[in-house]
């Protein structure tokens, strides 16, 4: 018999539903795996072993009593630690919230639990989701299960590493500029950033509110369809969630799309892209063509990547993203002042301003401070028009580019990151270089579109290479079917890092 750890979420819930396996056995298998690999991977901030086993036992009891089981009954999952839960702490991997216990559970997490999922614990991230490597965690960096000297990507690095390391079947992450898709690519798994408004943000600690979306990180496309179906939908507690029916993504995922038109944006295949990744994505395009799809050249001029005389890369999208996201972040993080909750300085202070300043200086890490300062600057009187307002205009132009592109194609095939997973410490000294890790993912957030990362290949040095499929708003169903076509046409699927094999 194959190991429990090899089963996908769909296979696992089917096995539990028909009694081949108990939910408790599944939870135990994963808790054991966490115990075995966690010292090396460091994906979790907190493991809720007792609660997970109790919930699993409840699923088994429900099944024994003949009660109907949810679509995720008994499936062990992990949750990024910027999603609030009434159980345990919600830290955002920040010293500021190291002891924060939320009196509410994020809608997406509550929906998963209502569907029977068993949450194993909370995963590490770049502090407040600000980063692309999980090295900005206020606690410790998470390591890439494919190569422990490398980063898992970020900011949902803990969730991505946990799924890749077989510490959970799937996980939830959040994506503001690529924080699900880039770590999914680095860790050889599937990750979806849904359309803005598809999933409620209630209970997600905000970073860039107009960009943030919660999405799944899974072993394969089918599982992504299953989880997305479970978490999507309108929520009256989030005014930006869209009242629109949620299709049964799982029911259609295996249906290939006839006459699929795959768009290749020329701007994304410049010399900024790692040659091996470029080759892998072109090969994937070839696989689509063989499967009957039509390849179309499209253009996204405002997402173009330029190289200056010194060889430095730049992009309108990256500049636009960092202005919008940091402006929003500077405001969203203003509430952490040591007055109502969160870290408060132990130093004696003269007045309230000093209490604010010291608490914030002690509680936030350097990257968070950098972004708060940049965001405060761009919103300041006299700079607003030059920065924030201009960024909003660029954002509109980026959206228009995509609208035009989708007149000619159904999905866009693009890289998920310019390089495979880099080494810990490789980019920490230069924040701007780190920001460029998101160069292929952020325009998708700016345009509010869904983007799905799937493994494209394994590279020469044994590191996974991801590719990204981008669709028009609310085209998640198309993305799942198109990605499944690639899996079926010989793409890689369910990669297991050799060091993590059970």
């Amino acid at each position: 018999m194959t190991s429990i750890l090899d089963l996908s979420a769909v296979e696992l819930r089917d096995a539990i539903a028909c009694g081949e396996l108990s939910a408790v056995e599944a939870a135990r298998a994963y808790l054991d795996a966490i115990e075995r690999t966690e010292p090396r991977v460091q994906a979790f901030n907190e493991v809720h072993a007792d609660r997970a086993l109790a919930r699993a036992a409840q699923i088994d009891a429900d099944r024994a009593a003949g009660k109907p089981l949810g679509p995720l009954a008994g499936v062990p999952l992990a949750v990024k630690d910027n999603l609030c839960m009434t159980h345990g702490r919600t830290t955002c991997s920040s010293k500021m919230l190291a002891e924060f216990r939320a009196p509410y559970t994020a809608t997406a997490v509550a929906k998963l639990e209502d569907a029977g999922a068993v949450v194993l614990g909370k995963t590490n991230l770049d502090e407040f989701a600000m980063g692309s490597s999980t090295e900005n965690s206020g606690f410790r960096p998470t390591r890439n299960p494919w190569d422990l000297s490398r980063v898992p990507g970020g900011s949902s690095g803990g969730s991505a590493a946990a799924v890749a390391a077989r510490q959970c079947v799937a996980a939830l992450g959040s994506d503001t500029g690529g924080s699900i898709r880039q770590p999914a690519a680095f860790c050889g798994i599937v990750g979806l950033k849904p359309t803005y408004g598809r999933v409620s943000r209630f209970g997600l600690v905000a970073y860039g509110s107009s960009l943030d979306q919660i999405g799944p990180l899974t072993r394969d496309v089918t599982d992504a369809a299953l989880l997305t179906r479970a978490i999507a939908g309108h929520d009256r507690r989030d005014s930006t969630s869209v009242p629109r029916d949620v299709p049964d993504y799982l029911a259609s995922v295996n249906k290939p799309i006839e006459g699929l038109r795959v768009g290749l944006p020329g701007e994304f295949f410049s010399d900024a892209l790692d040659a091996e990744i470029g080759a892998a994505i072109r090969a994937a395009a070839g696989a689509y063509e063989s499967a009957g799809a039509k390849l179309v050249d499209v253009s996204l001029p405002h997402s173009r990547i330029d190289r200056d005389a010194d060889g430095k890369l730049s992009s309108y999208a990256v500049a636009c993203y960092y202005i919008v996201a940091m402006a929003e972040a500077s405001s969203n993080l203003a509430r952490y002042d040591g007055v109502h909750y969160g870290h408060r300085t132990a130093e004696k202070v003269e007045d309230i301003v000093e209490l604010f300043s010291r608490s914030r200086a002690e509680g936030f890490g350097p990257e968070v401070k950098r972004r708060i300062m940049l965001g405060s600057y761009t919103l300041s009187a006299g700079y607003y028009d030059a920065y924030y307002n201009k960024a909003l205009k660029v954002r509109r132009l980026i959206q228009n580019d995509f609208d035009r592109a989708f007149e000619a194609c159904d999905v866009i095939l693009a890289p998920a990151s310019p390089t495979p997973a880099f080494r810990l410490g490789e980019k920490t000294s230069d924040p701007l270089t780190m920001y460029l890790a998101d160069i292929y993912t952020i325009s998708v957030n700016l345009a509010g579109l869904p983007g799905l990362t799937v493994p494209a290949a394994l590279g020469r040095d044994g590191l996974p290479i991801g590719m990204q499929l981008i669709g028009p708003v609310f085209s998640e169903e198309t993305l799942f079917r198109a990605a499944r076509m690639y899996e079926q046409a010989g793409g890689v699927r369910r990669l297991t890092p050799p060091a993590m094999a059970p």
Partner: protein
Amino acid sequence: MSETNETIKPVVGLEIHVELATATKMFCRCRNRFGDPPNTHVCPVCIGMPGVLPVMNRQAVEYAMKVGLALHCTVAGFTKWDRKSYYYPDLPKNYQISQYDLPLSADGFLEVPLPDGTTRKIRVRRAHLEEDAGKNIHDKASHTGVDLNRAGVPLLEIVSEPDMNAVEEVLAYARAMQRLVRWLGVSEANMQMGHMRFEPNINLHITRGGRTFKTPICEVKNLNSFRALERTVAYEIQRQHAEWQANPEGYSIDKVGKENRGYDDEAGVTVFQREKEEAHDYRYFPDPDLAPVLVSDEWRGGLAAQIGELPLARRARYMERYALSFKEADALTQDAPTGDLLDTAVTDGADAKRCANLLLGRGAAIANDRGYSIAEVGVTAGQLAELAKMLSGGEVNATAADKIFVKLAETGGSPRQVAEAEGLLAVSDAGQISAWVDQAIAANPKAVEDVRSGGKSQKKAFGFLMGQVMRLSGGAAAPAEVQRLLQQKLGS
């Protein structure tokens, strides 16, 4: 140059903050209530916890739109929410959800009745909706408490143009605004509960020897009473003039610009408030958590239709149609329900003047005693109409009607039943009255003599005898009948 040809024109603009009387707060479902123990109406949203999101209260938007429409403002078809950033412990998110460049309402005016009976149009620049902050409570030596019951209460900020030129005008405008929001039923506008707060901007335009000098504009924050507003404006006019006299070239708007001052209630003066090192930069930007508000013509029109007649129009109608005096009409249009009572009684066929007299007599006295409006005294339009008709028909006299009114307010019932039960129906039976008249004549020979002699005390003596008859009847005799019989028997 003598001071006599110097003219001083105060220029005052007023920001009025009005807390709206919605059931729940602006962006969460906590109750909007004053006076409960600290932090009993709070939730993760209004205390700004991580990961929660605001959800707009539609009733608050509708209340704000009603005020905008009643102020003849343009109510925007598209409006949005902005974040206004500043750090303060009573502001849990350290930003306030407000409206910056696209307020809900703009460019209107309020017709303000002045004490001399004229009215003045004060222009309203904008009226925007925002959430109120909490309150810092400094009642302990060791620390400051924060009460967040008020945090998130819907607050309408109404900004006037600098159209007021006298203390009386500022006060009249503020009172007219209070009357309007009460009239519309969107706020209790109770000063003690902080439902209304004022921030005047004041400076002087002084003309002397053909030159006009402008003093710096002073903004005084957070005034909680009409008295404070009145004293502040009066004080500022006097203070700015004195400062200008001491330094006519230096104390000017061009040199000093704008000053913030605070009001010291005990001393009745304003005091200079030093600005923080850096000027306030609120870093406004659109709140990404809230969708813009789209106001359709249907929505706007539906609310406009609910507004109906406004106080000044009603007052004019009462003077014209009901022949009431300015004072009477004004008193009856302080709030909408009192006027509604009158209008309904008149529609029932009662005489307007008699109804008005009843309402402004006993009605106003009771209301005044108990500190509420005449409509809240408890006499219904039906009761009012019936009582007024009984008065007109001579079935009760004015004294009896007053007694009946009081009884109706206390215990209810129909005016006729009350009159019968209390023996207040007028006696117009000639035989009975005749007996009382005879009795009075017999008991007061001196007065009878005075009437008959036709001297200068005749009129007074006759009135005295009238009064004696009324007293003998216990107030129940129909006065017209008493007069007729007295005249007959005295041959006068």
